[in-house]
Every structure is written in structure tokens, then in C-alpha cells.
């Protein structure tokens, strides 16, 4: 049980490439922190530096009060769950789980007790005599976890442990892992590229892009108040809709937002709560709105009368509980910086937008419909810096 602190940690390779740059994080005792970002963003490298598997080029690493930059992995009192599990193929489950204890010289009797304890937490009692080759993916993953928890380390490190499992299993394991961590109360670093895992499992989530920390905050805050365009687009599925827009004063008073050739009213509260916005009137900005804040106007004919878009439905996905509708709007698109993001739907002049409509919507592909957009929920970002306003 310990706190952990990264102080401007960096990793530079011989050819000059910076995998991690100035990463600073502070973990409370027992906290579950998720490091999330697209592939290649440096999150695994950061984790391996904490484990001691990679040298730290810059910065300092603390566990508790100790600076541990130069300690070998085995002296750091950390346990790690690898993406490919890294189980010892020639040993049984029992031997795999008990291995760290054996190395530390525990007696067989005591070892067995700990192994049994870990096995019962992870429901591996039946598998103890088997070898990894005889187990399913999910079972192997649990053995890897067993090996980690049996030592009661100061820190848990998990490197995308669920990415090799199939979807249904992943959902179940997410809950299991979160539950175990809560019961054991061990400070945990969890790395993933899946933002759903990040949002559901972490006490706090740190979004990383190109080795640089974008924002670290509890999931709800990341969702509701993203600090920049990248975080806004990365968190949330389907992604936030982003395009260029201009805020201006209506001739009759009040505020309006121009998105392409369409214009919607904007409540005064939006400007009042964002003082910096007032200085950006009549300038192009990056505007974001989440899919759930769009709705088929036909289903709520009396709402948000002055906050409507006229669009043509391009794609329709009926999910059962709701229907996703995709349509282009005539506003300039924005590149969020996520290498895995989809391209614009219609081309370079229009932005692709997604709305989460109620399942009762009658909108079909090709229909020209009215869509309500709750402009009180708009996000604004600077066009150059992509920072939130």
C-alpha cells in the first residue's frame, strides 16, 4: 500500500525519438489510475518505466517516499500483469502463482496458503494442477492476476490485460478486476487503448497523446469538461461531434452560433459561464457537441425551436435501445489528432456528425429532417491551440 509519484518522467531513445515527455502524475494510496490513449502514444512505455523494464531517461519516480529510478524491478515491490500474460509454460498454475513467493524464500506451507487464497479470489481452484497451455484465454489472464496479487505489492501494473480477450469476456473481467482492486486496496496503474475500459474502471483517467499528458481527471469530469479537442474526441463513444463554428450576436439581441450555413440560438448562460468566450465573438472556433444532445425534432416538435439543424440522413444504425443517425453538416471539419479517428463523411467541406436518437425515430436514409441540438451543452475550443475555452 503506497502512494506513487511521477515527476516529469521522460523516455528518449538513441535516435532521438521521445516516447514519453514530461509526464507528471500523483497517485493516492489505493487509487486506480488508468492511462489511456491511442496505440503508440507511450502509455506502455510509461508503465514499463515504472516497472523497471525500461530505463527512465528523464525525471524521477517515487513509490511512497523512495526514489526508485535506479532500482532493479525485483527491488521495486511492484507486480505486473502483461498483455500476453507471460505465464511460465513449464509450470502449473499453482507453481506460476506461487513463483514470486518461492523466489522470496517463503516456506511451501505458507506459499500454498497464499496460493489458495489468490486462487479462491480469482476462481482458479479447479485449475491449480494444470499448465497454461491447457487453459483458456480468460483463465490464463486470471492466473497472471493471481501471480500479481499473491505478493501483496505496493503497486499493481497492468498492461492492456484485457485486449486479448473476446468482447463478452472483457465486459465481465472489467468488473472483476475493478472489484478485486477495490477489495485489496492496492494502488494500481492500468494501461489501455480502450476508452470504455478507462471510463468504467478508473478512479481517475489520464489521457496521453504522443507521450504527453493531455488531461488527468475522474471519468465524469473528462467527459463533461474536456480540456482540449483530443480528449473531447477520444473520450466517449460515439465520439463527440466536432466542427468549426462562429459565435455572433443576433440583430434582435441574444447569442447565436453559425455552423456552416445554419444558425442556432445559444442561451445566455453559455456565454456567462465562459468569460473568455465573450472575447471570441465573430471568430471561427472549434465547436463540439455530444451525440446524445441531438434528437430527431419530429419526436419533440415543441422543444428547442430555435436550435435546429436541417440535415440529410446518410447512415442509420438501429441498435435496439436507440438509433444512431449519421449526417453531414456544411461546416468545416476538425482533425482531433486521434490517429484512429474516422475520416470526414462527405469530403473536406463538411463535417460528419452523429446523433443518438430514440429508437422510435422514423428517420430513414435520404430523408431530409430537422434535428434539435441542445446548445446549452456546447463545448468550445480554440481553433489554433485546440484548448478548451
Amino acid at each position: 500500500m503506497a502512494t506513487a509519484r511521477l515527476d516529469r518522467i521522460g523516455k528518449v531513445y538513441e535516435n532521438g525519438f521521445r516516447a514519453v515527455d514530461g509526464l507528471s502524475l500523483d497517485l493516492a494510496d489505493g487509487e486506480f489510475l488508468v492511462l489511456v490513449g491511442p496505440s503508440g502514444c507511450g502509455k506502455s512505455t510509461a508503465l514499463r518505466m515504472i516497472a523497471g523494464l525500461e530505463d527512465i531517461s528523464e525525471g524521477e519516480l517515487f513509490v511512497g517516499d523512495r526514489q526508485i529510478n535506479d532500482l532493479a524491478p525485483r527491488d521495486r515491490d511492484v507486480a505486473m500483469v502483461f498483455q500476453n500474460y507471460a505465464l511460465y509454460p513449464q509450470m502449473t498454475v499453482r507453481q506460476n502463482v506461487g513463483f514470486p513467493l518461492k523466489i522470496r524464500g517463503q516456506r511451501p506451507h505458507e506459499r500454498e496458503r497464499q496460493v489458495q487464497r489468490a486462487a479462491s479470489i480469482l476462481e482458479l481452484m479447479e485449475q491449480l494442477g494444470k499448465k497454461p497451455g491447457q487453459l483458456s484465454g480468460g483463465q490464463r489472464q486470471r492466473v497472471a492476476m493471481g501471480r500479481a496479487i499473491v505478493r501483496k505489492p505496493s503497486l499493481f501494473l497492468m498492461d492492456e490485460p484485457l485486449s486479448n480477450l473476446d468482447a463478452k469476456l472483457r465486459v465481465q473481467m472489467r468488473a472483476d478486476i475493478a472489484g478485486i482492486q477495490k477489495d485489496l486496496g492496492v494502488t494500481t496503474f492500468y494501461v489501455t487503448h480502450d476508452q470504455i475500459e478507462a471510463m468504467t474502471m478508473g478512479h481517475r483517467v489520464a489521457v496521453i497523446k504522443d507521450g504527453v499528458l493531455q488531461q488527468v481527471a475522474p471519468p465524469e469530469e473528462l467527459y463533461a469538461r474536456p480540456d482540449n479537442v483530443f480528449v473531447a474526441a477520444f473520450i466517449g463513444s460515439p465520439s463527440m461531434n466536432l466542427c468549426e463554428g462562429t459565435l455572433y450576436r443576433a440583430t434582435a439581441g441574444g447569442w447565436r452560433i453559425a455552423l456552416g450555413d445554419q444558425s442556432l440560438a445559444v442561451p445566455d448562460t453559455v456565454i456567462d459561464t465562459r468569460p473568455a468566450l465573450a472575447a471570441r465573438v465573430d471568430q471561427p472556433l472549434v465547436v463540439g457537441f455530444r451525440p446524445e444532445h441531438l434528437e430527431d425534432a419530429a419526436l419533440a416538435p415543441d422543444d428547442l425551436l430555435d436550435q435546429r439543424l436541417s440535415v440529410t440522413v446518410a447512415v442509420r444504425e438501429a441498435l435496439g435501445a436507440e438509433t444512431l443517425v449519421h449526417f453531414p453538416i456544411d461546416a468545416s471539419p476538425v482533425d482531433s489528432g486521434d490517429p484512429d479517428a474516422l475520416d470526414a463523411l462527405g469530403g473536406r467541406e463538411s463535417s460528419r456528425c452523429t446523433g443518438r436518437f430514440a429508437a422510435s425515430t422514423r428517420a430513414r436514409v435520404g430523408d431530409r429532417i430537422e434535428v434539435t441540438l441542445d446548445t446549452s451543452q456546447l463545448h468550445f475550443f480554440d481553433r489554433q491551440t485546440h484548448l478548451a475555452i
Partner: protein
Amino acid sequence: MSDASPPLPPPARKRSPAAAARSRTGFAFVSPAMLVMALLVVYPLAYGIYISLFRTNLLNRWDFVGLTFFVQSLSDPGFLRSLFITALYAILVVGGHLIVGVALAVVLATQIRMRLLFRAILILPWLFPEVVVALIFRWIFDPIFGLLNHLLRSVGLISTQVAWLDDPTWAFVAVVGAAIWKGYPLVMLLALAGLQSIPRDRYEAAALDGAGRFGQFRYVSLPGLAPILGVAVILEFVWWFKHFTIVWLMTKGGPVDATNVVSIDIYRTAFQSFDFGRASAMAVIVLFICIAFAIAYRRMVPDEQA
């Protein structure tokens, strides 16, 4: 993200203590082998080069002659001829291995009945020591009691006994044949492994595109095999270029130097003429040829890393 932070930490250190320790550990694992090789390979190699600079009988006569033997050998038609013969030998043998090995591998990679039995039989030649191969074939080629003559006569292809190993051309053919017989299984196994690592869907895609059996071989099998066979070809060529045993025991380099591969030439110079300095020089020349070939080949086919 505060601005009033303490000054940046010092720039990245050249090597952390952990990396240095790992480097030392790695060196520790490797050093026994390195030491042995330095003593048993590098030292003799250097000594061999040293010897090539002297006219010597390794006992009491050591006359420094510098590069004389190199110059002499490179202008000696006999030595050049043996180099040519050796190169021809290596090319034919390796070529034979490739053709036979790949052909058999292609056959063995398909759904044949009793595949494993055929494979076991076809690997047999590899298990025979070179000495044994040389002797068996010499016995088969024997002029009077050899199996070859007997078989050919009984089907009427020849009427008198042929002394195969006494004829320059046929002796060469015989040693090439024996070497191909002995060595093809290795290439066959490598090709087989290579073929089995080619994903089946490539063949399916080719078939859908209209490729017949031969087309599939040409456009899927061969390119897929190229990396493995590439390395094999280098090693094989060098191996058979320096080959000694089979040729020596079958023909001793004759008749009339028809099969005088360079290893035999060097052997005779050293251990029959006792001209060790010259022999060493000839060996050094062979060494350079082999290295040059390997380098040239790697240049030509840069996509594999050995």
C-alpha cells in the same frame, strides 16, 4: 500544469546504472564462448594468415616471402583452373539441391498418401556420413563390379564396361551426382518448412484469380520460399565450395585434375608437397572468395536478415 516549477532535471544520462549492469551480465554470459572462440578460431586463423607469408615446412625452415605465394597462386593456371572447377562444382551441386529439394518439398507439402513414410525415406541420404557416401558411390561406379555398369548393361544401354571414374567428364559428373544425392534433404526440409509457413489463403486468392497449379507455384510458393532459400543458398555454396571428403575419396582430384577442387589442391600442396606457406596462401584466397560471395549475395538480396 504549474509554471513555477523547479528547474528541469538534468539531461538524460548517458547510461543508467541499470543498463550498465545489464550490459555486464550479457557480457558474462557470452564471454566463455567468446574466449574459446578467440583461442580456437581467431588465433589459428591469424596464425594461418601468418604462415602464408613464409616459405616453410613448419619445422625448421621459415623464409619470409611476403605476398609472393598470393601473387604466384593467382597467376598459376593450375590453381585458377581448380578454382574454376570448384566453382562449377559448387554451382552444380547447390543448383541440384535446390531443384531436387524444392521439387520434392512441393510434392511432400500436398496431401499425399503415406507422406510421412516418403519423407522419412527421402531424408535418408542426409544421415549418411560423407565418407560412406563417397565409398558407396565409388563402389557403384566400379568398372568391373559396379552396380551402375551392371544395370546399364542389363537394359542394353551400354555394351562394354565403362570406367566412369577414369574419364574426366564422367568423374566430374559422378562426384556432382554423389554430392547432390547426399545433400538435397537439407534443402528439402527447409523448403518444406517454408512452404508450410505460407498461409493457405494466398493460394486460394491466386486460384480465384485464375492461377493454375504452376501459376500458384510461381507466384505464391516461390516468393514465399525466397527468404529461407536465400540464406540456405549462401551457406550451401560456401559449404560445397570448400568441400573435400566426397571428391577426395572418389577420385582424389583426378583423373588428371578433372575434379581437382581447391580443397584437394590445398591439401596436396600442404601434406604431400609440404609447401605449407603456399598452401596457406591458397587457403586465404579461398577464404576471401567465400566472404566476397556472402557479402555480394547479401547485397543483392537485402530484404532478409540472417
